[in-house]
């Protein structure tokens, strides 16, 4: 691992305003992710772990003066909207607990979506080939023309992973990727992530399950909006 973190969240704070009261979800949480590292953020419900992931993944903005997110040393949230979109599209991939696939698109089209959105450097045909091979790798070759509603939970999550990998991101963010699956299927998904990690992908995963957390290189505990104890697993 190089000395410069691939991604760094510094002193991140996030407050939600609910009516008259303010909820301080994150209170100066910091995190460093290096190349080819798998960090698991462990915490109870409401501890702010998903929020942390959203801030790091460019989906949600920290409070004003509430820390910075540095990707390859560059502040993500000080970029232009266009650059933030590029960050979401190119540099990272997101896997959600509830899959978040577009119901009107087929499995293949859902997988190709980031390439199409990026308007990208590759042609439709190439994107199709790439998406097909990703689906093949994930054992979904027979599901290409199916709609998400025709798939099981595990299959949907694998489609979501394929979509996240479409633009060859540097980091994969996984928000409770097994939270909606039975144990066996969840393990299959974790196996897929492990394989990707072994192939060199950096991963930030959020979970409340200690056993699942143990799959990563490093577990960080998030409690009351702050990182408590980084612990190296392997």
């Amino acid at each position: 691992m190089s000395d410069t973190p691939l991604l760094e969240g510094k002193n991140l704070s996030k407050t939600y305003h609910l009516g008259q009261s303010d909820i301080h979800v994150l209170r100066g949480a910091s995190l460093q992710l290096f190349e080819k590292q798998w960090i698991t953020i462990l915490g109870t419900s409401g501890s702010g772990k998903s929020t942390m992931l959203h801030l790091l993944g460019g989906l949600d903005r920290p409070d004003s003066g509430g820390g910075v997110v540095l990707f390859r040393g560059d502040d993500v949230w000080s970029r232009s909207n266009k650059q933030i979109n590029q960050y979401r599209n190119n540099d990272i991939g997101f896997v959600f607990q509830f899959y978040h696939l577009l119901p009107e698109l087929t499995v293949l089209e859902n997988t190709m979506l980031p390439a199409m959105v990026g308007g990208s450097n590759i042609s439709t045909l190439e994107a199709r080939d790439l998406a097909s091979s990703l689906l093949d790798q994930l054992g979904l070759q027979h599901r290409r023309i199916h709609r998400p509603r025709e798939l099981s939970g595990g299959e949907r999550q694998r489609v979501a992973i394929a979509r996240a990998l479409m633009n060859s991101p540097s980091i994969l963010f996984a928000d409770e990727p097994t939270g909606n699956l039975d144990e066996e299927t969840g393990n299959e998904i974790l196996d897929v992530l492990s394989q990707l990690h072994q192939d060199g992908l950096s991963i930030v995963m959020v979970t409340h399950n200690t056993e699942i957390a143990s799959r990563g290189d490093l577990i960080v505990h998030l409690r009351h909006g702050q990182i408590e104890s980084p612990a190296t697993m392997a």
Partner: protein
Amino acid sequence: MYQTLLTTRYLTSRVIPLIAVAAVALCVALVIVVVSVMSGFLNMVQSAGRTLMGDVVISYGISGIPHYEELSHRLENDPNIQGASPIIDGWGLLRMPYPDTDAKKSVTVQVWGIEPESFARVTQFDASLQWKTTSSNQLHWLLIDVCTKHSETLFASMDAQNRESCLNLINDASYLLKHQQLDLWNELKSIVGQEIWEMILSHDERLSNSDAVFQQGLTLSRNGRDAIVSGLHVSDGNVRQKDGTYQVVRNDYWWLPRFDGTLTMLPIDARGGIIDPESVIMPFANEFQSGVFIIDESRIFVPIGVTQRLLHLDAAEIVDSDDPTIILGVDPARSTSVLVRGIEGVPAEQLRTIVNGIYDEFRASLPADTLVMPPTRSDPGLTINTWQEQQRSFTGPVEKERELMRTLFSIVYLVVAALILSIFWSIVYEKTKDIGILRSVGASRGGIVWIFLQYSLVIGVAGALLGLLIGWLITKNINLIHTSMGNPPAILAVVSFVIAGCIAVYTVTKSRSGLLLPFVLGSIGFVVFCFIGGIVLYIKHIGGLVIWDASVYYFSVIPNQVDWPSSIFTMVGAVVFCLLGALIPAAKAADTDPVEALRHE
């Protein structure tokens, strides 16, 4: 690229875009039909105006223009002018030949005294004549009239028995012909013999010449007498049929060219006082139909000489007020107006300028010692107007009505806009989560908005085209639809009730499962079809319905030409409203935080 894919999928996987297209189409069709009918209506009024009075009208109130023959002559010599015709425009009372009792009906009529020959050059008088030939029933009535009127001379040479049978035949026919078809012509011809038959025919030109009724209309004369050509709706004898044709009641018994009428007019003296009314009994030669109901119900044409005599506008000697035996000169005959028609391609405004110049020349050409001079152009009583200006009092309200309709329908446009906005609001709202997903994979706000703009563009264009098609079909067939609505086929009621019955059975069967939707839909369908069937039966019961009443709307047919400029404007408006309706909720949705959008359920 992903926008087009998503737009296609959104359009093809849901019912709601179809509802949106239908809503847009119905609104567009509604506006197209209403505006087309109103515009067509105005065009008909305007073109009828031009047909009836030419392009430019020179008028000088009640006292009339002296030396009008010279003016007409000068006008007709101008290469830009196709024809000029003097008329006398006045009001009178016309005593009609009906009913059969002595208490005949009298109607107020607008009397136009015309020179038929020049009048036909300026207006389409010949084309407007109703009776081009004489029908067999009409011939029979004319035959009965001649035989009744001249029975003594005609049948004098016949023996008593033959005369008796002739008179019986005529008497029976005059009763029976009101109700049934007869072959009086051949029957009578065989009884009376060739010589008397020819005598009979010689009494009325129309008996031997089928074209005579038309020619008599054109010349305003009947069998050598000055005659009246009256508007088709002046007489109560003409009844409009549902198919738009006319029939004369009682098998042509009340066919006006059989009869005479008494025309009474009020002459006015130089100081505006009324002189004793003047009356004349004149035969009817023909009837005309201009297509403008208020003209057809009130106007009659008579030869200009008749009106000049009745209104004391004919030439008269001017005598010395102290010694009536001394004749100072002649006050020439007058006409109240001169109608002018330009050759094709000369605009009415330009023609008016030409007519102004000719009028000035005409006045200047009269010798200085002329006893009675025509008015100068600065005389406020003299007007030289184009047909549009002359018709303003008539077309003005129609134009106002059209503008009022446009304004009212602008509100319909707003309703369309609100409808589209609410449909798109719900469509976009439903897709909020998709927007969150797209944002999470890097889609820009503009990219998101473009999905919904494409979506609304397709709905707007499809709706506008479908609306145009529906509007075009309705407008083109509006008279047929009107007739069918006024007199719907009974089978429609039967079909409606059968469908209602089927729906009832289906609903009862489906509702057993306890589901509410089939019950609600079935009940609505049942009520709607029962309602349609009931309405059809009701219209049948009251003997048909006339929605477009010619007496209210001036014309006997509903205009059925699509107003293309307004239609295209409406279509473009619908598309723009669709785009705006989608833009607002889409922009709002694109601005939603991705995380918040993802949480949307």
